[in-house]
């Protein structure tokens, strides 16, 4: 008996979400490799340098917004059904959020890919941040709005399951998997208010031509109201895996249930008010608010550092259960032959590296050295591009058998895949970081300039280019390996009653020791909203007071 036997209805929607996620991953990954080859001038035959920006828009949207969101709703549906022991309350509602998200994705993708079709009047080379006055086709914005609305409904679905469960369990602590799901969604509700207002109130009317001019700073600020918290929307599902599943895969159990809860609620409190740190280099936002964002950003390191502690100590506990000894030698006792474990562990290691470059980004004035350089994609391919993406891929090796009732096939290929990703990302990311220090910008088709050459403080420009290009190709190979394993296992695995050991042992220090206040959602949401109001009311009021659409600049279609 595994997940599919207990919750066949939930299984179907989880599988459907994973299918959309993996299609987005395949297309987005292909685009990424094209970028890596194009930017470095190793090969520019796939697209023109003008079309590069359409490809880059596709890469950002399909990976950072579509792949992540669909995988997350699948993973969380799995977690909620399993930990509350319930099918969704009403399958019509459940399928309706899935389809709204999917239709939104298709519309946005059409708007983007239209830019690659000769003679098409549809295009949206606005990048995944879609800063106006660059203007894409209205379908781009409408699709994005639907994707978000669908995700809101998914969250509502889980809250509904939780409330029904609560009636039968008035005194229980919220099961940890559900706790993490609900807190992530609370964060998501708060931060998406920004982007929803931006898209629905400002950008859709403007892209349809109801208003002509737009004030660029206001939508940009609303975007980043959403845009930092969204990184925690990507990361918390990875933490969900690291806290609840990784200890089990290591052969042990979670260290402390309550500290896991504390980490999640700290993210709920701190994620949104610090969005300004993406606007450190913006004129029109006072330095005082930037400072506040700096302090908040550094404080939010705390729950991540706490996570690092728990993850490592849970793994050590697991290794010792498996007979590991010594100060460091216990690491050898970990299950390095289990693809799910290896992928999640390597993702965690890369995240530590990403954390260091993130501290540089966070440091207000030091950030000016690297703002909008290749350093930045170097950084976030370690975080969302690996900590999140590799965790998602690896945990699929463990969850998919629970959804299909079939064993994993191509196990050796599956085991090699995370190592391959790690190798490709090491090459690409270190070189992107160093290219950024040399001043090479991100988001550009041709970082060569007629008037001057970049000087590399570490290494040489030529060697960096090759590392980026080769790393990008290796990553693509890794992606193909992943898809091969998944497709083969999905349709060709052997049907057995227990295709994977899916038992999750209780934590060493369980929820019975966790203070009830940690489960008080009203309290934490209230505090989170107060912090957001504190951070955003004044600057937003200042931008809105002189008129919603002014100082206005004319649209620039791309």
């Amino acid at each position, binding site marked *: 008996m595994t997940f599919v036997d207990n919750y066949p209805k939930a299984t179907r929607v989880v599988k459907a979400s994973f299918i959309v996620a993996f299609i987005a991953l395949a297309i987005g990954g292909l685009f990424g490799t094209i970028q890596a080859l194009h930017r470095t001038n190793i090969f520019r035959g796939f697209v023109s340098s003008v079309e590069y920006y359409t490809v880059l828009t596709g890469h950002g949207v399909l990976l950072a917004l579509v792949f992540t969101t669909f995988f997350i709703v699948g993973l969380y549906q799995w977690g909620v059904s399993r930990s509350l022991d319930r099918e969704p309350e009403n399958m019509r509602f459940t399928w309706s959020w899935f389809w709204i998200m999917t239709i939104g994705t298709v519309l946005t993708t059409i708007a983007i890919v239209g830019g690659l079709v000769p003679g098409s009047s549809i295009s949206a080379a606005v990048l995944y941040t879609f*800063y106006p006055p660059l203007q894409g086709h209205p379908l781009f914005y409408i699709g994005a709005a639907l994707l978000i609305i669908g995700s809101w409904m998914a969250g509502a679905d889980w809250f509904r399951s939780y409330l029904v469960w609560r009636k039968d369990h008035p005194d229980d602590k919220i099961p940890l998997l559900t706790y993490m799901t609900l807190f992530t969604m609370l964060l998501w509700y708060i931060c998406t208010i920004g982007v929803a207002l931006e898209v629905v109130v400002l950008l859709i009317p403007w892209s349809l031509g109801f208003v002509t001019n737009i004030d660029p700073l206001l939508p940009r600020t609303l975007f980043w109201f959403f845009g930092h918290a969204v990184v925690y929307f990507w990361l918390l599902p990875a933490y969900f895996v690291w806290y609840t599943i990784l200890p089990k895969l290591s052969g042990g159990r979670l260290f402390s249930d309550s500290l896991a809860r504390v980490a999640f609620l700290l993210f709920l409190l701190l994620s949104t008010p610090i969005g300004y740190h993406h606007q450190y280099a913006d*004129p*029109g936002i006072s*330095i005082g608010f930037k400072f506040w964002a700096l302090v908040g950003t550094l404080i939010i390191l705390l729950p991540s550092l706490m996570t690092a*502690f728990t993850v490592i100590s849970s793994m050590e506990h697991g290794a010792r259960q498996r007979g590991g000894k010594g100060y460091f030698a216990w690491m050898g006792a970990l299950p390095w032959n289990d693809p799910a474990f290896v992928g999640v562990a390597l993702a965690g290691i890369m995240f530590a590296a990403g954390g260091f470059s993130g501290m540089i980004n966070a440091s207000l004035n030091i950030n000016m050295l690297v703002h909008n*350089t290749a350093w930045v994609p170097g950084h976030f391919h370690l975080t969302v591009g690996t900590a999140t993406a590799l965790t998602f891929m690896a945990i699929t090796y463990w969850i998919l058998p629970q959804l299909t009732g079939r064993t994993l096939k191509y196990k050796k290929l599956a085991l090699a895949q995370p190592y391959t990703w790690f190798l490709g990302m090491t090459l690409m990311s270190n070189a992107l970081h160093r290219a950024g220090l040399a001043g090479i910008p991100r988001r550009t088709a041709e970082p060569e300039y007629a008037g001057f050459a970049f000087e590399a403080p570490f290494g040489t420009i030529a060697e960096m280019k090759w590392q980026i290009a080769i790393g990008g190709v290796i990553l693509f190979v890794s992606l193909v390996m992943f898809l091969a394993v998944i497709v083969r296992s999905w349709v060709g695995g052997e049907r057995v009653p227990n295709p994977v050991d899916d038992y999750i042992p209780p934590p060493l220090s369980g929820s019975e*020791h966790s203070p009830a206040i940690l489960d008080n959602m009203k309290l934490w949401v209230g505090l989170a909203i107060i912090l957001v109001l504190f951070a955003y009311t004044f600057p937003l009021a200042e931008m809105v007071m002189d008129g919603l659409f002014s100082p*206005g*600049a004319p649209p620039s279609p791309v």
Partner: protein
Amino acid sequence: MHIHRFEKIWIGLSLFLIAVCTGIVIYGFVALDLKVPGIADSGTIDPMNLAETEFAQPGVRKVGENEYEVYMVARQFLFLPGTGRPLTLPAGAEVTFHVTSPDVLHGIHVSGTNLNTMVIPGQVATFKTVFPEARTYGMICHEYCGPAHHTMEGLIEIVPPSEFDETTLLTSR
């Protein structure tokens, strides 16, 4: 709630790290004068009507003994001044940049330095600097601004004060 002793130590160290990082930034601000753009004294301007602002005539003005102001317009896909003919300034002078855009978002990064700002229509990015030695700097647009974004570049030429040609300066204020 039970917190393991090692975890308490770890949390303590984490808080220390956070304090150190904050300290480094403040030290940079106060002692090294490493600043970031903020709200311009002039407030917002109308990007559709730069002709009626200081930006009507982009260029360099002398405002003090060794002080200059640069009024620069960044637009699809050039810097005025900077693209085509380099922006020329004397070494060692205190230079204040004011930059804005009439069309879309741009960015300026003077390569190899921490002179880095967004350029946003309606806003004026202001920053001060001193270029200590005579040399040429490359300047690029670092925010995607449209199909030819990757061609948007300029040069800043720093010359010895004795060679600085004051006839290139704008006179009006």
